[in-house]
C-alpha cells in the first residue's frame, strides 16, 4: 500500500486522525493513573477490588512471560554452539540435505537435540515453500553505522567484531554514516578507523550526511537513509543484486558476536519470503556492563529479557535497536523515516504497511552487544538513562501512523489489525502505568480508607491477598536474577564473584528503578506526544572508562 509514513505534511482528516491517535496513549495513561487515584480516594473499596484483579492479572502475565523468558534463554544458549555456516551451506542442496539431517543419529545432548529439531523444522518449511534458495557464497552484508559524536574507542571494537567473525569479511560492506555536524574528534575517529580497516572488508565507505536537508529532522534515520542510498549506488555499480544483500543498521557502539553474520545469513537463506523480513537478534549490553551503575545495568538487562520474551512471539515481533533486514525490502520501502526518532521500530511498521501486512520479523538466537548508558558520575548517568528510556518510549509516535494506516489498509484482516494495534497500544500503556499502579496507587485505598471501607472485610483481607501475590511474584524476580547472572559476559573481570553477588542484589531495586527509569520516562514521552511537544533527537552519551 502506498502510504506516507510520517506525521508531517498531513491535511484535513488525516491530520485530525493523527492528532487524535497522538493524544490517545497519553490521555489513556493519565486517565488510568488519575482515575485510579480518584477512585482510591472516593471509592476505596471499588479501587481495592480493581487493584486485586489487576495484581492477579499482572502475576499471571509475569509467570507467563517468565516461562517464555526461560524457553527463549534456553534456545539462545542452545544455539551458541551452532555452526551456522555449515547449516547455511547445507541448505543449498535442499533435498539431499533434508535426507541427511533426517537420517542423522539421535543426539545425546538435549541442547543439540533442540537445535537440531528447530533446524529440521526450518528446512522442512523452506522445502514446503518452494522458494528459491540463494547460495551463501552470493550473500553480502551491508552494515550502516550512523555516527554523530561517538569517539573512535567506541566505534572501533564494533568494526573489529565485524571482520573477526565467521562470515568472510570480504563480503562485508561497511558504511559509516557520518553527520556533517559531527564533532571534529568524531570525524577524525571515523576516518582513522576507515584507514585502519578498509582493506579488511569488501569496502569501507564514509558517507557524510549534510545538515539541514529539506524534509529531514535531526534524527538517526535521516543519516542512515542518506547512507543507504549511497550504499545502493555503490552496490549497483558493483553489480551486486539487492536480493543478495542483508543490510544491518547498527548503533555506533554495537559489537556483534562472532557468529552474528553467519547466523543472519543462515536465517536469510532459510526464510522462504526473505525479502519481506527483518531479522532481530537479542541485544545485550555487555560492552561496559561492570563499569555502569547498578540501576542502569538492571534496566538494560531487563531490555534484553524483553527481547528474549518477544522473540517467542514472531507473529507480533517488532524490530528494536540494532537489527538486520533484506536490503531489497529496505530499498522498496524507501529506507528509514527521515523525520522520526524511533527509526528502529518505525522501519518494521513502514515495511508492514508497504507490503500490506506481508512482512514479518524473524527472531534470531544470537546476540549483539551495546553499551550501558553511562556518564562521569552517578547523577549524570541517571539523567542520561532517563533520557534514553524516554527516547525509547517515544516509539509511541508510531502508534498514530500505524493506526491511520490500518484504517486504510485492506490487505490485512480486521482481527490482525486489532491484534497488532492492541498490542502496540497495550504495550505503551503498560509501560507507563503498571509500575505506578503496583508501587504507589495500589496502596492508596488503604491510605485513604473511609470509615465504611475500613469497617469492611475487604479492608483486612485485601492486603493479605496482595501480599501473597507479591510473594509469588518474587519467584519471578528470582528467575530474572538467575537468568541475568547466566546472561552476564563470561569474560573474567576483577572481583568476579563479588560483582555478581552485588548484581543479584541490585534486582531488589526493581520497584524503584521501574518507576523512575521506566514508567516515568514513558509517561513523559506520551505526555509530550499528547501535547504536541515533539522531541528532538538527543544522542545517548556513550562513554567507556
Amino acid at each position, binding site marked *: 500500500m502506498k502510504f506516507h509514513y510520517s506525521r508531517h505534511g498531513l491535511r484535513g482528516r488525516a491530520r485530525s486522525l493523527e492528532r487524535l491517535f497522538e493524544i490517545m496513549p497519553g490521555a489513556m495513561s493519565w486517565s488510568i493513573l488519575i482515575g485510579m487515584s480518584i477512585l482510591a480516594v472516593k471509592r476505596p473499596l471499588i479501587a481495592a*477490588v480493581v487493584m*486485586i*484483579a489487576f495484581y*492477579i*492479572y499482572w502475576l*499471571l*502475565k509475569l*509467570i*507467563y512471560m517468565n*516461562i*517464555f523468558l526461560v*524457553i527463549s534463554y534456553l534456545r539462545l544458549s542452545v544455539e551458541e554452539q551452532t555452526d551456522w555456516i555449515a547449516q547455511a551451506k547445507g541448505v543449498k542442496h535442499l533435498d539431499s540435505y533434508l535426507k541427511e539431517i533426517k537420517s542423522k543419529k539421535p543426539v545425546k545432548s538435549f541442547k543439540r537435540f533442540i537445535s537440531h529439531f528447530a533446524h529440521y523444522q526450518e528446512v522442512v518449511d523452506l522445502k514446503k515453500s518452494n522458494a528459491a534458495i540463494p547460495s551463501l557464497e552470493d550473500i553480502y552484508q551491508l552494515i550502516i553505522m550512523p555516527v554523530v559524536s561517538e569517539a573512535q574507542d567506541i566505534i572501533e571494537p564494533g568494526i573489529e567484531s565485524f571482520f573477526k567473525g565467521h562470515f568472510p569479511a570480504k563480503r562485508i560492506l561497511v558504511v559509516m554514516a557520518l553527520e556533517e555536524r559531527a564533532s571534529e574528534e568524531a570525524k577524525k575517529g571515523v576516518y582513522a578507523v576507515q584507514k585502519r580497516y578498509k582493506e579488511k572488508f569488501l569496502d569501507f565507505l564514509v558517507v557524510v550526511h549534510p545538515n539541514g536537508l529539506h524534509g529531514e529532522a535531526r534524527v538517526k534515520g535521516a543519516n542512515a537513509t542518506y547512507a543507504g542510498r549511497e550504499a545502493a549506488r555503490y552496490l549497483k555499480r558493483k553489480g551486486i543484486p539487492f536480493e543478495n544483500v542483508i543490510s544491518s543498521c547498527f548503533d555506533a557502539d554495537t559489537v556483534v558476536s562472532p557468529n552474528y553474520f553467519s547466523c543472519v545469513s543462515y536465517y536469510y537463506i532459510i526464510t522462504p519470503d526473505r525479502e519481506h523480513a527483518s531479522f532481530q537478534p537479542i541485544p545485550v549490553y555487555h560492552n561496559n556492563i561492570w563499569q555502569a551503575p547498578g540501576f542502569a545495568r538492571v534496566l538494560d538487562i531487563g531490555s534484553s529479557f524483553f527481547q528474549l520474551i518477544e522473540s*517467542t*512471539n*514472531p*507473529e507480533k515481533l517488532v524490530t528494536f535497536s540494532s537489527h538486520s533486514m533484506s536490503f531489497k525490502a529496505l530499498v522498496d520501502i524507501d529506507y528509514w523515516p527521515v523525520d522520526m526518532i524511533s527509526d528502529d521500530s518505525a522501519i518494521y511498521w513502514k515495511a508492514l504497511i508497504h507490503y500490506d501486512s506481508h512482512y514479518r520479523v524473524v527472531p534470531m538466537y544470537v546476540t549483539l552487544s551495546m553499551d550501558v548508558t553511562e556518564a562521569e558520575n552517578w547523577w549524570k548517568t541517571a539523567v542520561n538513562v532517563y533520557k534514553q528510556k524516554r527516547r525509547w518510549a517515544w516509539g509511541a509516535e508510531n502508534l498514530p501512523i500505524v493506526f491511520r494506516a490500518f484504517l486504510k489498509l485492506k490487505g490485512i484482516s480486521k482481527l490482525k489489525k486489532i491484534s497488532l494495534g492492541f498490542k502496540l497500544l497495550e504495550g505503551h500503556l503498560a509501560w507507563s502505568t503498571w509500575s505506578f499502579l503496583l508501587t504507589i496507587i495500589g496502596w492508596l485505598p488503604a491510605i485513604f480508607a473511609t*470509615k465504611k471501607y475500613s*469497617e*469492611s*472485610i*475487604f*479492608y*483486612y*483481607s*485485601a492486603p*493479605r*491477598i496482595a501480599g501473597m501475590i507479591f510473594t509469588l511474584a518474587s519467584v519471578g524476580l528470582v528467575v530474572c536474577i538467575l537468568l541475568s547472572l547466566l546472561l552476564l559476559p563470561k569474560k573474567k573481570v576483577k572481583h568476579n564473584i563479588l560483582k555478581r553477588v552485588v548484581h543479584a542484589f541490585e534486582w531488589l531495586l526493581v520497584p524503584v528503578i521501574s518507576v523512575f527509569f521506566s514508567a516515568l520516562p514513558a509517561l513523559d514521552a506520551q505526555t509530550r506526544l499528547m501535547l504536541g511537544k515533539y522531541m528532538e533527537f538527543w544522542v545517548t552519551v556513550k562513554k567507556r572508562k
Partner: protein
Amino acid sequence: MLFLRKVLFYIFLLLYVVICPLAILYAFGFILTPGQEESVVKTGLIYVSSAPSGAAIYLDAKDTTQKTPATLQQILPGKHTVLLTMKDYKPWVYSADVKANEPTVVDNILLIPYQWPISPLTDDAFSDLIPIPGNPYFLLKKGDFLKDYSVYNWKNGTLQPLIEEDSLYQGAKVLSYTTVENSSPILFRLKTKGAKPLFLLIDPSADKAVIEDITSLLSADPGRITWDPKDATQLFTLKGGNCNLVDVKNMAVYPKYLQGIRGLGLYQKQIYILKDDNRLFRMNFDKGGKEELLDDPDLGSSIFGDKGKLLILPMTKRIIMFITEDGELLSNHLPYVFVREGVLGTEFYPDDEYLLIWAKDRIGSLDFSVEEAEDVTFEKGPRLMWRYTGGKNINQCFWAYDGSSILFKDNEGVSLLERKAFKKSYLTQIVKVKPHSSAYYSEDSGALYYLDPSSGGRLYSVQILPQGRALIVTEQKDKKDPEEKQEKQEKQVKRK
C-alpha cells in the same frame, strides 16, 4: 512455539477467569462449602492486634498458629472465643460475635504484665507532680516557693530547677498556677509583700526557662485566665462577664475586650463565646471573621438556661462541649445535655472522636464518630456510656494506647481500664501514688509518672506501653539498687 504460546495463553486466560473472581469473593469473606446446605457461605473475620505484638492467638481453644497482629479469616458467623497468651503477660480472653461479611476488630489490646516495669527516676522526693499535657516535661514541687519547683524532662531524663538559683523570684511563694494543654508556658500567681500578687509567665521548654513578668498587665484578681496553645502571647481573662485581652508580646491590655459573656473557649486561634443572651459566637482574636453558631435564643435558652457561667471546650470545629460550674456537661450535639452534674474533666481523643468524661465516681465516654442513620425518626446523637462506676474520688483520667484504654487515678490508686466494652471491661490496678499528688501519663513515652508513696515521694515511672510501641524511648536511669527494686516489685505484687 506458536502452538505452545497459544495453548499457554488460553490456559492462563482460563486461570485468570477462575482465580480472579474466586480471590475477590474470598476477600469479601465468601467460602465454598461443598456438600453442605449452602454451598457458598458468607464468613466474617477477626482482626486482632495487641501491645506487645507477638501474642499467640487461640480461637475456640484451638491454636491458630498466628501471632498478633493477625487477621483470622473464614470465620463462620456466631460466637467465638479469642484467647491471647504471651510469656510474662496475663492471658486475655474475649468473646467475639462474628457477623457475616463484617470484620470484628479486636485491636489495640494492651496486655497486662504480671509485673509492671517500674523504674525510679529521681533520688529526691517531691510533694506533688504538676502535669503540663502535650509537653515533654512536667513540674515537680517540694515546697510552696518557686525555688522548690523543678522541671523533669522525660524525653532525656533530666531534672533541673524551674528557675535559676540566683533568680530574684526564688523566694516567691506560689499561690496558684495555670497551665493550658499543649502549651509550654505556666502562669504562676505568686505572693508578694504588697497587696497585688506577682504574675509570672514561665516557659521551661528552652534550656533556660524564659520568665515574663506580666504583673502590670493583670489585676490582682483577674478571674479565669486562659490562652490558645498556638499563641501564648495572647491571654484572655474572664471575670464578671467581661473578657480582657492581654497582649504579652506588646505588653498591652485591652480591657473589656468582650463583654456580656457567660462562657469563653479558645480553639485554633479562635474565640468561642456564649453571650448572656445565650447566643454562641466564634471569631478570630482580632474579632474578625465573626460567625454566629447559635442564633436561636429560644434554643439557646433551653440548652444553657440559667446554668450560670460555663467553660467552653471546643474539641473540633464541629464538636463543642460546655461544662457548668456544677459539672453539668452540655454539647452542641443532640441531646445537648449529657450529664446533669458532677463532671470533673474531659479528655478528647481526636482520631476516633471519642470524649472521655469523668466524675468523682465514674468514667464514661461519648462517641461522636457514629453518624446518625438517615431513616431514624428520633435522633439520638452520640451515646454516653459509663465504663466504670465504682470510683471513689476519680480526679485524673488519660487516654492510653491509641485511645483503647483509660488510665485513671482514684484517690491514690492508678488503674487501667479497657475502653471497648468487650466481655467485661478489664480493670487492673497498677500503682499507688503519694497522697494528694498527681500522676502524669505520656502516650509518646508510654509511661506513667508518679510520686511513689513508699519512698517519700521519689519520682517513678511505670511503662504502660511496651517499649517498642511507645513513640519515644526514654532513658530510664535506674538509680535504685537491685535489692530495693526487688522489694518494690514484691510490694507491687502484694497490692494486686
